[in-house]
């Protein structure tokens, strides 16, 4: 039984990433004693919790073969709306959470509907809505944060069991839900089919337009959860929330093996992608390297990951050509 599991594990496409992550943990633990300190683990889990929501928000859109530049803008708009509705209108927390989710989903729907109706690429549409969402954000806040966050939200953002923050609960549930969605649910299959070949999907009875809108709505919802988690974590409703999400949103899914042309993503791979990004960020802090280098490293990592995927593709094609050339 355990042998079978090991065999399946080794064959998984993310096995290499798992080894890299494990190796990273090992090296850092040996290099720095503080790495495995409860506080450091707590910090890394927080970083993971926030990044994974951002990464999955983008992953869904990569699955359908598109890009969503407005992930951060949606997260930011939801964050300040969530904080503002509680501070200004005194909205109860559960209602504010629902309203925040709704805003995220609606923003996503807008992206999806615009791409489907106009036929303009999501890259351009979300570039425009990025600016629109950010503009609404700045219009509401006048670039000032909402400070008056209710105590239970602040508590949730700070509480932990040992080194494990409560904040990690939602992202873990979201990852599990996303795994089922992308691997077992019909709608997830539809998304991957549309990303893989929209013509074939349409001629197989899949509503391509509806699937695209659903993916964008889901992306908006995931970004919304991310935005609200950051509010709980920072304890204020900062208008700048989401500004730095874009790079990691692409880095993690791509490191995790996503095909940018669409049709293939890996939820577990994306998680490992986030873990690797988190480890790198943490290593830079522990080794007292200027944190500004994080962006540079992430950029390099994206190039490396895309390059590796391309290399595999070219190799596979060459192997296929050789196999076909051989007399049958």
């Amino acid at each position, binding site marked *: 039984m355990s042998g079978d599991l090991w065999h399946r594990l080794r064959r998984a496409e993310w096995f290499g990433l798992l080894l890299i992550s494990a190796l990273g943990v090992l090296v850092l633990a040996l290099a720095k004693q503080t790495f495995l300190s409860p506080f450091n683990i707590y910090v890394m889990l927080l970083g993971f919790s926030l990044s994974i929501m951002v990464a999955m928000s983008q992953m869904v859109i990569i699955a359908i073969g598109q890009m969503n530049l407005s992930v951060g803008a949606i997260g930011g708009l939801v964050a300040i709306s969530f904080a503002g509705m509680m501070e200004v209108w005194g909205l109860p927390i559960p209602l504010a959470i629902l309203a925040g989710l709704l805003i995220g989903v609606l923003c996503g729907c807008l992206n999806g509907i615009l791409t489907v109706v106009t036929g303009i690429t999501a890259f351009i549409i979300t570039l425009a809505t990025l600016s629109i969402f950010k503009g609404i954000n700045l219009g509401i806040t006048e670039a000032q944060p909402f400070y008056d966050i209710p105590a239970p939200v602040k508590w949730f953002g700070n509480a932990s069991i040992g080194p494990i923050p409560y904040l990690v609960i939602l992202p873990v549930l979201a990852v599990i839900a996303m795994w089922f969605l992308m691997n077992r649910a019909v709608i997830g*299959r539809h998304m991957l089919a549309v990303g*893989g070949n929209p013509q074939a999907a349409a001629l197989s*009875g899949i509503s391509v337009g509806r699937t695209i809108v659903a993916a964008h709505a889901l992306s908006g919802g995931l970004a919304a959860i991310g935005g609200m988690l950051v509010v709980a974590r920072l304890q204020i409703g900062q208008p700048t929330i989401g500004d730095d999400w874009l790079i990691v949103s692409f880095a993690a899914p791509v490191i995790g093996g996503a095909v940018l042309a669409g049709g293939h993503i890996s939820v577990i791979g994306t998680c490992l992608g986030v873990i690797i990004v988190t480890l790198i960020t943490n290593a830079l802090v522990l080794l007292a390297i200027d944190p500004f280098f994080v962006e540079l490293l992430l950029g390099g990592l994206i190039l490396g990951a895309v390059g590796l995927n391309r290399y595999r593709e070219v190799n596979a094609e060459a192997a296929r050509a050789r196999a076909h050339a051989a007399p049958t």
Partner: protein
Amino acid sequence: MTDATLEIRGVTKDFPGVRALDTVSMRLEAGQIHALLGENGAGKSTLIKILTGVYQPDTGEVLLRGRHQRFQSPRDAIAAGIGVVHQERNLINRFSVGENILLEKLPTKRGLVDYAAVFEQAAPWLAALDLRVDPRTPVIDLSVAQMQLVEIAKALSLRTKILLMDEPTASITPHESEVLFDLLRRLRDDGVSIVFVSHKLEEVFALCDRVTVLRDGRNACESRPLTGLARADIVKLMIGRDERIARFGEKVVDRRRPALELRDVATGHGHHHVGLTLYKGEIVGLYGLVGSGRSELAKAIIGAEPLTAGHVEVNGQSAPIRSVTQALNRYRIGYVSEDRKHDGLILIHSVLRNVGITIWNRIAGVLGLTTRRAEADRVLPYIERLEIRTPSLSQTVGNLSGGNQQKVSVAKWLAAETEILIIDEPTIGIDIKTKTYLHELIWGLAAGGTAVLLISSDMPEMIALADRILVMNNFAIVGEVENTRDYDQVSNAIMGHIHDPSEGQGRAGPPPAAAGV
């Protein structure tokens, strides 16, 4: 020296799983218009790509004015004086006519484009073609026929001595075609050699001096003078007659109630008054040349494109099909598309998912979740029944051979338990063995009660499988032929419907934008 003889000797070209060209020869003399004919998949486009340096032949040689040539890229072919005007336009729409003509060698002054020189140098080429447009006009403002002339001007400006015209009249009106033909005759008289690819035999007889016909990647005839050949002879050469017509067993057609009936159907593509009746257990063939509107009709029947008029009935009940989902789940209609790589399969996905795609909605349980086992249980019997050779269900479809890919695209509709199946060109680019297998399969499906609408340009395939054959031309059904399985009689009857000069003449034709073909 104006001698522009181009000779191809015994050229063979293989692609994975298929031999596209098999020892093909052709001899093009200076000052001749040479027709290159053949049905879909006969190898015409491969031959053109070899002449224009896109592909390199595996064996055989290309000789230009008696000298051996080996074009490594399209640039080599252009440098050697071979120009091609493709069926689809290859102009930059926003650029001016002048820039488009001189694009490969724009005149410059101190590193900047010298526009005065561009328009000055382009003008003579336009004048030579009697094209009265200002070279400053953006190409986007021209008609389709004018764009084609600009492409010819562009080819000529590159000192082209050999001009390949790939179905030049597919998207222009008959009158514009006449103007084009006059121009081609003048070019011929000036010593240009022209290769003319067309499906319209009237044009070939009106224009060409010699003809080469390809069939299944081989020469059906090589550089024969057209004088002395009749239309019927050419048709025979194109569709062949040496293939033995396979006989399958008996099957019963249930003629009590039509499984599918179309009455007076029209579409945005230009189909009009299309009527069609298909019974359970019957195979109805839909024959027609490329661009006659067969695949477009299929896509309209399954709800991928809207009908603009007419009535559809499934099993005697009115069936206003609005989407592919509805066609599949409510009316059990499936469509095996012609272009499996583009329309049929998701190449980066597994065999399991490609076959399962049609049944996900049906096997989904709570929360819309499916299990791999449920999917595999439904898919596996069809993988086995169709003898799809794959190492596992997880194998990526892109890694399978063409024949096995085609089986996968059929399997997904069988798994969906369709009662009406439209099969579009099932055996294009497929090896003989798999072809025979697919024929038996289609026959078996019909014998089992499925109503099959078979779209094919392969005449022997049609005659082997179909019970009746409907002939489509210019987006209308122009005739019906009862299949007696007598090859000569049936093929002549079909060709008679298609090439009847009284049909399809003087038509306005669908507007180019709406035709989309």
